[in-house]
């Protein structure tokens, strides 16, 4: 079908036989061609939703239509999305008993170039994340982008080797849940004024959206950083294996290395 580049061979014992692969390819190809034909034949009738959003945009408190839809018109979806993120974070909480959020690693294998760059880069990332959060009201931006940027800053900090995050402390639990809690309090609180849950009063819409977005940014950043942290610091619990310390996230990618390292040493 196409010429794959030459790489080291791997264990083929688990692959499907070639006939099955060809049959699969034919079936998937027929399905894709059918879908393309269907897409070309059906027209796309213009939807009435964009006009509705444009009409109500001034009453929503923000000027960016995507933010208005996410946090005002369809705020229930965003509430449930933050809840889904929190559920995944709870499922991946680590087992350690450390009570500090950020701890300095002793005998750190510090990556000196990365650490030097991060002294300049991390403040800039934090300012950029704050800017994206603030400008989400009128320009492209918002809570999710800002939270993801802060989580990337945390990943870089952990990669440099000097600091390590642990999300079982009290302040970490507060950070993880503050987005959902704020959203629910605001949603129920406006029901006392306007009678409907999650319907903001028109003059308070802009500050309420900013409040929800700020809390959601902190929460999303903490959750995404927790996801990375628990994947990067997994320990091996085999009792008969040699004692393995929790692998910190110092990655030394050797580009020609496959999964075939027979010992713990990286192949040259």
């Amino acid at each position, binding site marked *: 079908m196409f010429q794959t580049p030459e790489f080291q061979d*791997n264990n083929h014992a*688990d692959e499907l036989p070639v006939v099955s692969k060809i049959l699969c390819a034919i079936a998937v190809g027929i399905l894709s061609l059918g879908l393309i034909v269907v897409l070309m034949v059906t027209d796309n009738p213009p939807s009435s939703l964009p006009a509705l959003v444009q009409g109500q945009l001034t009453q929503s408190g923000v000027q960016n239509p995507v933010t208005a839809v996410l946090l005002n018109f369809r705020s229930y979806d965003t509430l449930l999305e933050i809840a889904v993120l929190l559920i995944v974070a709870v499922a991946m909480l680590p087992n350690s008993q450390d009570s500090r959020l950020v701890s300095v690693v002793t005998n750190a294998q510090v990556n000196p170039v990365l650490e030097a760059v991060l002294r300049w880069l991390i403040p800039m990332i934090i300012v950029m994340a704050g800017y994206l959060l603030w400008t989400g009201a009128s320009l492209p931006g918002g809570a999710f982008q800002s939270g*993801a940027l802060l989580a990337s800053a945390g990943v870089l900090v952990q990669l440099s080797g000097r600091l390590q995050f642990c999300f079982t402390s009290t302040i970490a639990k507060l950070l993880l849940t503050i987005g959902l809690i704020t959203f629910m309090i605001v949603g129920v609180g406006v029901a006392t004024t306007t009678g409907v849950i999650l319907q903001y009063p028109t003059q308070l819409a802009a500050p309420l959206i900013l409040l929800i977005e700020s809390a959601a940014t902190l929460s999303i950043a903490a959750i995404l950083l927790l996801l990375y942290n628990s*994947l990067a610091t997994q320990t*091996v619990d085999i009792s008969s294996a040699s004692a393995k310390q929790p692998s910190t996230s110092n990655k030394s990618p050797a580009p020609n290395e496959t*999964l075939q390292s027979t010992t713990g040493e990286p192949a040259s």
Partner: protein
Amino acid sequence: MDFDLFIDSCLVIGILTLACLCLATKNLFTAIILFVSLGLLVTIAWVRLNAPDLAIAEAAIGAGLTGALLLATWRQLRVEPANNDADTPNKSGDENVPNP
């Protein structure tokens, strides 16, 4: 052909080629790196489709954080010594290596 359409078709050809290569390479590390590049090309596709919020989110979340998660898992699956024999059926079905 229109210049915009030419740019879009080059982008689409690049995206489809990267997707094929990502799932066809034998080296898992290369597949992960190609997946991150695919995420970046899809970011440019979002810009071409007038979706700047999605472009920022895809660059940060789809390409950046997913790449970090995948590389962390790759390291986890790679660092443990392969203690299985060659003829013991694996429960996970991954590319475990027979011990020499």
